């Protein structure tokens, strides 16, 4: 094993970058669940769709067009899903919701296959984010640093909105006790709708960000779904701190697991998940105490 500090710095950056990608995805899922008690398993498909929209838009107008268009397009689809499907399912209990959104995964998967085909798509990076910079004496891809910075920026922005603004207070009240919040005159349904759209937009953004790093394939949404669910279960449902903590734990366990114990790499995170479920079934930072 290498004792070179550059090697470990590199791995730490890798872990951070994976964490931030998962954070973008899990924050939407966890807040939607916390506020609406609605498990949207199709969240991963929205991520895949974001990647496809970004790849398609990038061939026309370059990377940044895709980067900004993907969240908007996916939020648009979120509005359609919400008004056509999810609003009707609000009162129908978790099992029906899980089944409907699980079915949505396959419907959306086949839709992307019909529209974009089975062959993986590519996305070119803009010159600004291409190449490498020297960090602690090692060359690290700029794009990965960009993902880390973007994840931290979104985290800070969401923390500010939730802590300091009126809408943040309303969301927190809704997560804590939605019936009481409604009694106090908060339009909880409208709040749900806004949060759902923002969650969808973040999933689309995560797809657009992941596209140049990974390959854009129809099943990318399925591949990311399990890690995302693990993140929110470890972190605790419904909270921002839970999402960031869960993402960091997943990213570091996955990365350093692969470095230190490659044979155990795929099992470690599940073992940790089991341990969390036994010791703290509500997760590390549940939204409700």
């Amino acid at each position, binding site marked *: 094993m*290498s004792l*070179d500090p550059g*090697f470990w710095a*590199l*791995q730490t950056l*890798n872990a951070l*970058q*994976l964490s931030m990608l998962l954070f973008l995805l899990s924050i939407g899922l966890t807040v939607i669940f916390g506020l609406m008690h609605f498990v949207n398993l199709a969240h991963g498909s929205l991520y895949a769709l974001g990647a496809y929209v970004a790849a398609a838009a990038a061939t026309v107008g370059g990377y940044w067009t895709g980067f900004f268009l993907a969240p908007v397009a996916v939020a648009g689809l979120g509005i359609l899903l919400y008004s056509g499907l999810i609003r009707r399912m609000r009162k129908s209990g978790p099992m029906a919701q899980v089944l409907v959104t699980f079915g949505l995964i396959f419907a959306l998967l*086949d839709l992307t*296959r019909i529209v974009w*085909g*089975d*062959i*993986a*798509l*590519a996305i*070119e990076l803009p010159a600004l984010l291409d190449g*490498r910079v020297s960090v602690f004496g090692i*060359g*690290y*891809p700029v*794009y*990965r640093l960009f993902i880390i910075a973007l994840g931290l920026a979104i985290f800070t922005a969401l923390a500010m909105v939730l802590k300091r603004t009126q809408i943040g207070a309303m969301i927190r009240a809704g997560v804590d006790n939605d019936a009481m919040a409604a009694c106090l005159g908060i339009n909880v349904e409208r709040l749900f709708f806004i949060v759902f759209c923002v969650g969808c937009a973040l999933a689309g953004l995560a797809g657009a960000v992941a596209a*140049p*790093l*990974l*390959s*854009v*394939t129809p*099943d*990318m949404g399925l*591949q*990311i779904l399990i890690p995302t669910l693990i993140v929110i279960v470890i972190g605790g449902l419904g909270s921002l701190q839970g999402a960031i903590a869960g993402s960091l734990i997943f990213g570091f366990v*996955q*990365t*350093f697991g*692969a*470095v230190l114990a*490659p044979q155990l*790499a*795929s099992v470690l995170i599940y073992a940790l998940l089991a341990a969390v479920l036994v010791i703290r079934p509500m997760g590390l930072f549940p939204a409700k105490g």
Partner: protein
Amino acid sequence: MKTTILAALGLATVLSMPASAEEVKVGLLLPFSGVYAALGNDIEAGFELALEEYGSETEATFSLMREDTEVKPPVALAKAKKLILQDKVDVMAGIVSSGVLGAVRDLIDGAGVPLIVANAGNDEATGAHCSPFITRMSFSNGQVNRPMGTWLFDQGITKVFTLAPDYAAGRQMIDGFTETFTAAGGEIVGQEFTPFQKTQDFGPFLAKAKASGAEAVYVFYAGGEAISFVKQYDSFGLKADLPLFGSGFLTSPLYVNAEGPAAEGVITALHYVPTIDNPENAAFVSAFLQKTGRIPSEYAVQGFDAARALIEATKTGASDRDSLANALRQVHFDGPRGTLSIDPATNNIVQPIYVYETVPGEFGLSQKVLAELPASADPLNGCAMAPVSN
């Protein structure tokens, strides 16, 4: 009046049917959905093309029945049963995934229906689990990689780090390379198998490869993993100091354009690339391009040659299950890949392997053939079966 016309028409129909033609029912077992759908479509297109181009050489006619394996062994097994028992096919072709091949192997061997494998490369299928009814026109995992070990050592590279997904094919590909590379005198300084289809970020493994002191990296990845891997390898800037070699699926023409400039300079070995210089290949590439609008991949040529093997077998007069199986084991012809033959000891194909470099070309990326490594038959690997009967 009306009845006369109808009678005449009926008579004309009967007369227009060739008297001695044998109808061969072919069951195509391919993934048309799931992760390997793109491969299934390419194999199907190649198969149809060969029937169009070479079908007139034989007296037999072919009717195709397509079934979707969905890359799921239980589904594929049910579909294979349907083809054998209900549709009563004379011969089957296809199978992309080795897992699917393993699932249907006993059924096919027991029912005595010949199967022409058009992709699945697991070594056992023509080794310990070989069957006189299973003939492979694609490749075996070891076959593609074995010649690369010696070749790479001859290029002056003595220390290599290997990477592959952690499943049977990944291990067989790397074992094939390691075997000849170490026999030639090379040293494997590090070896990692990444969780199959669970690894999206290769960063941690790339950092290990860089720190290992290797002179080159040899890998096997395919499909989405190959695209992610090649792009990430380039993004870390490893290509300059640590050249990337591998099994040719890494930079398959099917998806190399999704890898983009990151794939330039990667040197890999495969049984087919569209730029092989021979007249059969030139004709094949232009016919395939005309039919589908795409450059053919190795999967397309496997489908094409699977159908050609079937045509060659029927030319010997074979038309039922037993005679077709026997004839398929003795097939040999010159195709886009060069001179091909089936080794009757294992029923695996014997074919040359091409070392190629991915280079920028006229339409996206292209393949520059660096060397043609001579064909050699696979070792028996525990295969024991009845010899062909004449």
